[in-house]
Structure formats: C-alpha cells, structure tokens
C-alpha cells in the first residue's frame, strides 16, 4: 500500500503480461471441458437450490439471494422452519482458501546494510520489496438459518491465517413482524446494509480484497469508527416490499468499529440505506440507492498510570466528535452476461480526528484530547470524494470475470494552507484497480469450489518516505491464485 510511482508501475506491468496470457489460455482450455457453479452450502443443502440461484458468483449475491437474505434466510414458503429439516441437518459451512501470491511493495525504507544503518553516513535506503509463496487465507465457520419461522440467526466465528479466532458475525433477527416484510429487527454484530457487500466480495488480495472506499480515512486521521466495510455491533430495523424491489434499513451502532467489550466510550453511529429496483425490460432488474453513515466517536480518554507507564483507560472515552459518509449505489445489469456496480462516497471527519485524535485504545490515534487541548493553527475538517466501479462479465454461471477501479481524492486536507505543515492537495489520494476471474468447475447444491485468479495494483499519493524535501507516492501490486472452497 505504500510504494513507487506510476511510471514504476508501468514498467512492472509487462512482467504480469505473461501471467495474464497463460491464464487466458488456461481458461479456454478449461472451458472446452466445462461441465456444469455454486454458495453457503448450508443454505443450499437446506433448500435444494444450486448456489447459482442466490449468487451471481459465490459469495456475491444476486437479486434473488438478496431477497432471501432480506427475508431472514427464508424462501417464504412452508419449508423455512427447521422442523422441515432432516434431524441430521447441521447448518454449518466452512470456507478457507489455500493460495499462492506474490506481493510487491514499493518504497520500503530499509537499512542500507542488514543489521543497521550506522555503518554508513546515510544508513537507510528506499527500495521495493517483493515476496512470493504459498499461503493460507483465514478460516470462516458460517452457521445461519432459522430457529423457527421468522426467527433467524447468523453466527460466524472467523480466524486469521494463524487460527486466532474472533466473532465476525453474531446476530439474531425477528422477521416479518406483524406479518409485514416492512418490519424486521436485527440485534448483534452484523454487516452494514451495503448493497455492494464487502463480505461477499469476489476478490481476495490484500488491497483488492476490500473496498478501499468502505475503509478510507485520511492519512494521520484517528477515526477508525466510520468503516462501512467492517461488521458493527448494534441493532437494525430493515424492511422491504414483497418482491424486494423497495428496501430500507436503519441501524444504530456502537462506535467501536465492531470491537467487543465496550473498549471506547458511549458514542453511537447511525447507518441508513434505501434503494429501489426497476424492471428495465431485456436489460434485467436494475437498482439504485443511497446510504449515509453519521456518527460520533471519542477523542479523549482517562488515563491510568501503573509501574510508571501511563495508558488510556478502556471504556472511558469522551469528548465525542462527529463524522459522516454518504453516497449513492447503483447496480446496473445489461442482459444476462454483463453488469456494473457503482458506489460513490463523500466523507467528512471532524478536525479533531484529522489531527490524529480518536482511537487511542487500539493505537490508531496518536493524541489524547485532554482538557485544555486546542487544535493546531490551520486545522480543518478533512473531506474526500470517492467512486468505485466494479464490472462483471458472466460468461456462464461457472465463470465470472471481475474488474474494479476505485479512486478516492481528498477535497480538503486536515492541515490547511495556514498550517505549519500544510498538506499537498493530493496527499493520501488512492487509486486502485483489480482484475481477476473465478471459475467453478462444478455446480451443485452441496459444496462450492472456485479456482481464483487475481491481480491488484494500488497507488497512493504522498505517503512514501521523504526523498529530499518531497514525499513520494507508493505503488503496491499483488498477484494471487487460489482454490476457494467451502463445504
């Protein structure tokens, strides 16, 4: 995420070309022997539907899958209650991805000589570091479904690739209250109602496996609490029309970025989303919507000193400051083979966050807004604008080509022109693209397997080491191949 210039990236691209060429050849080889693609097999096993019924390509939902989710993982027939299941049915799915990947980070500051820079007058140098090899993704255990008709749940213990577990999702939901699809209540830790879901993203690389737009904060900003892509703790009211053409949601969240045990303070955040789908004839069903995330988070923490070490006191956060993100979402389909997903965002953080106040507990922030603190001269609320384009070409339910381009540009820096250290107008801007494909060699309702290939390139302005008096841009690239499977 921090390397090189654009010209450097262009020099690197030809190195990737052989990989792309070979990959395309392999794709055609496979297509020539193509068989029949796939999802959360626990749901597919329950209802007997192919994974492709709910997923454009798993894990990404299609419209029918979104309706199934909005109904509380129910098809709304008389088979929804668990009493219809075979007693041996256990709604658990695991997913893990053995991968090979090559990560190339530009402009890493290293010692000129291993062991330290003291042996030379200029003890550090800037160079690209490239690493490749076989690796693992984290492990997810998905379990979800219905406890009874209109009582649904989802529990997702998830680990990193060292098997260190946390709860990614834990929620229970009351569905169709008063017999109406317009009223459903969810409580727990859950994914925000993003139409283009990061939890169902079709890409896996370090920078391409997330939506940068959903996590962006200006460089040096201490506000980790506005991350739309992270699962959050809270309660949500959601509703939709019978056919899910019209849908809305409103969630009240603790400003903890999904961290349990109330590590911060008493601040809350709201997330609101609404969308409307339209039947556009031969093109399919398109959808447009809007979202807003409006919240507050602490910038001041009480401290405790023990053995001479002073630490912020968990749970004592106060002096809440505001932030918000808002934007539009579009899902445009062009027949059965091509679609384009679009998300825009305008973001705003209070000037205190821009100066690095915020998450002092987990170390993201650097300052504590103790009484009497004042903002440096020239401080201003940082703002930015971003856009995300994600086209899909669906050759068949078994093969999908994915592309993505994200561009986030600062529109106001935290350190303005009157600041002692004013920031360049493009400081922290991000642009990134991702291309890849997923091939499912078989298509049943029992398990999922995808051969995944992907390339990601990310560029960020001004966040590299200083060269002379100027900051530098950073380019990072990653190639990844893996077997994505779940059962």
């Amino acid at each position, binding site marked *: 995420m921090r390397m090189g210039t654009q010209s450097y990236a262009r020099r690197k691209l030809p190195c990737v070309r052989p990989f792309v060429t070979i990959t395309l050849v392999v794709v055609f*080889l496979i297509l020539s022997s193509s068989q029949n693609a796939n999802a959360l097999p626990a749901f597919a096993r329950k209802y007997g539907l192919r994974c492709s019924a709910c997923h454009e390509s798993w894990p990404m939902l299609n419209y029918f899958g979104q*309706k199934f989710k909005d109904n509380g993982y129910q*098809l709304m027939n008389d088979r929804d209650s668990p009493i219809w299941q075979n007693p041996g049915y256990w709604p658990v799915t695991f997913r893990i991805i053995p991968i090979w990947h090559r990560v190339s980070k530009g402009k890493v500051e290293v010692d000129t000589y291993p062991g330290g820079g003291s042996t030379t007058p200029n003890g550090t140098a800037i160079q690209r570091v490239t690493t490749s090899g076989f690796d693992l993704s984290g492990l997810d255990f998905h379990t979800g479904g219905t406890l009874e008709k209109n009582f649904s749940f989802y529990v997702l213990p998830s680990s990193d690739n060292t098997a260190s577990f946390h709860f990614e999702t834990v929620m229970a939901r009351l569905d169709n209250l008063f017999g109406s699809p317009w009223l459903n209540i969810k409580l727990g830790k859950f994914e925000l109602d993003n139409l283009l879901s990061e939890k169902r993203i079709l890409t896996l690389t370090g920078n391409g496996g997330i939506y940068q737009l959903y996590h962006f904060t200006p460089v040096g900003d201490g506000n980790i609490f506005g991350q739309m892509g992270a699962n959050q703790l809270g309660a949500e009211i959601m509703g939709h029309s019978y056919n899910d053409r019209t849908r809305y949601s409103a969630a009240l969240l603790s400003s903890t970025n999904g961290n349990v045990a109330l590590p911060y303070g008493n601040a809350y955040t709201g997330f609101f989303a609404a969308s409307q789908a339209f039947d556009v004839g031969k093109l399919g069903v398109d959808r447009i919507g809007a979202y807003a995330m409006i919240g507050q988070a602490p910038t001041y923490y009480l401290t405790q000193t023990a053995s001479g070490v002073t630490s912020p006191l968990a749970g004592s956060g106060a002096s809440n400051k505001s932030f918000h993100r808002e934007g539009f979402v579009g899902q445009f389909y062009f027949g059965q083979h091509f679609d384009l997903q679009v998300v825009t965002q305008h973001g705003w953080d209070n000037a205190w966050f821009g100066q690095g106040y915020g998450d002092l507990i987990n170390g993201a922030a650097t300052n504590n807004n103790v009484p009497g603190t004042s903002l440096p001269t020239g401080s201003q609320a940082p703002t930015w604008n971003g856009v995300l384009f994600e086209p899909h070409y669906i050759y068949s339910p078994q093969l999908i080509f994915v592309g993505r381009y994200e561009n986030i540009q600062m529109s106001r820096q935290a350190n303005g022109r009157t600041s002692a250290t004013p920031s360049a107008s493009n400081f922290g801007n991000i642009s990134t693209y991702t291309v890849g494909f997923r091939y499912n060699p078989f298509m049943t309702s029992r398990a999922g397997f995808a051969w995944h290939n992907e390339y990601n390139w990310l560029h960020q302005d001004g966040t590299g080491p200083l060269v002379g008096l100027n900051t530098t841009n950073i380019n990072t690239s990653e190639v990844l191949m893996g077997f994505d499977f779940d059962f």
Partner: protein
Amino acid sequence: MNTLKPVHFLTAIVSFVLAVGISSRAQDAPDVGPHPPTPEVPMESHIGKLTGHSKDAKSDFRRYCAGCHGDLGDGNGENAMWLDPKPRNFTLATFKCRSTLTGTLPTDQDLFNSIGRGFSNSNMPIWNTFSGQQKADLVAYIKTFSPRWQKEKAGDPIKIPAEPPVTIESISHGKALFTKLECWKCHGPQGKGDGPSAATLTDSQDLPIRPYNFADGKDDSRFKCGSTNQDIYKIFMTGVDGTPMPSFNDTIQPNDAWDLVHFLRTLQVNRHSKENDVLKAAGGKIPPYVEKQSEAPTNQSENRAAGGGN
C-alpha cells in the same frame, strides 16, 4: 527482471497443472446431468406486451431451475431425490395450475404466474425477483421440453363469473357440496387433509401425494395456485392435473362453485376472512343446508370456455 523469471516459470507450471487437473476432474466428475440442449424448435411466449424467447432463457434456466427440474426439464435435477413434492417434469407438459380446462395446455400467462408466485408448500421459490422479460423467456424455454407445445394450442381460460355475496346460506350450501362431492374423503371432514383416502393418494407418476390441509397456516398464500377466491374457484373447476384432484367443471354450476369457495375459506380457521366473519356472526356454526325449490339452474355452458373441452 531476472528475479521475476522464476515467477513466470512457476505460473506456467501451476497453470498447466491446473488446466490438466481440472479438465480431467471435470470428465470424471459425478454425473450431475448434461448441459441443457439448445432447443431444436425455438419457442415464444406471449404475455401481455411481452414476447418471450426460449433462446434467451437458457442461461437463467441453468442458473435457477436446472438443479431441481434437470437440464433436460425432466424433473431429474441433482436435488430432485431430496424434494417432496418432486419437481415438475416439463417433458410431460402436465401442469397443475391452469386457467384452462383439465387435459389442456396452460396459457403462457398461467406459467408466467406460476413462476412469479412459486409454490408455497413445495421447494419452488417465489421468483418475483425476475424481470417480466426473464419470466416470459423462461415460459418460452419451458415449452421447448415437450413436443405437445408444437402440436397443440393452449386451452382457453375458463370464465369466472362475478363472486356473489358471502352469506351463511352460501357457506351452508358449500358445506353440503363438500359432503356430496366427497371432498372430505381426501381433505378430511375439517379440511385437515386427513380424509380416509388421504394415505392412499398418488400422483400421475405413482408418487405419494398429500391432499391440501386447509386448516394449517395463517394466510392464504399457501394455496398452490393462487391466494384469491377466484384462484380457489379456478383450482376445482379446472382440476389439478397430474394429481387425484379432479376438475368439477362438468359437475357443478358456477353459483355452486362459489358457495363451495365460501365454505372452504371457513376451513382456514386461523385466517381472518369475510367468510369467517359471516360464520362468526352466525354464532360460529354452519346451519344445515335446506335446498330451495325455486332455485333456477344456471346454464352450465356459461362456465366453460368457448371452444374448450378436454
């Protein structure tokens, strides 16, 4: 660049191994059915202003439908063995929910409605997320599976007369018909699907089938072929082809059919309905039906579709 050459080499090796491996695995995989054949005779459907084309539904059928109905539309998808009731076999062109007389092909609109409505007491989902065009294309595609669609025209929809007012008398008459027509033998005296013949019923493919349980569930969406009173009327006037449920079009007259509809609604004891309101106002009991001598028989032919027949 030199440092990257091993990467290219490794990529080439891995890609080759994967290509060979996956290709051979695909050939050795368990048989989950062949790809749907390209229909020899392209079919069209016509629903209102929509014209469906079978060629445009091939991908959707494979994505959404083939897992149950099978790539050949014969009801033998890989999930069929786990499902009850079994998925429809489109090669027989026998459909339960029709507006046409028994034995005839359904209209395109009938199939279109079935896709969008789903079947609540089976695994068939409510596919109302499809665009109208998608559903029209799927209707056309379904018609490619049986040669009957090339040889026969769909039947004409039956005419459904206006519904008379709900009265305790009509409910009482409906109950009498329920007994006289021996509906209770399958559906049970209280409509719970537990009549003396219930356990012996099989469908046209000799698979066990359960009669409808009117008493279960709270809402009327559970009716297989629709939720309105007109839909219920249509169900027993056209019959449910491929099941033991006969057509009563030749047996009862339209006003009698409406009386039967009103009585059947009272069997849905958990559902709020005007029929149950009338019954409640009458003290909660259905009085014995007393036949009126002055009742003029309705011209039965009015109930039939013009040019209709089996």
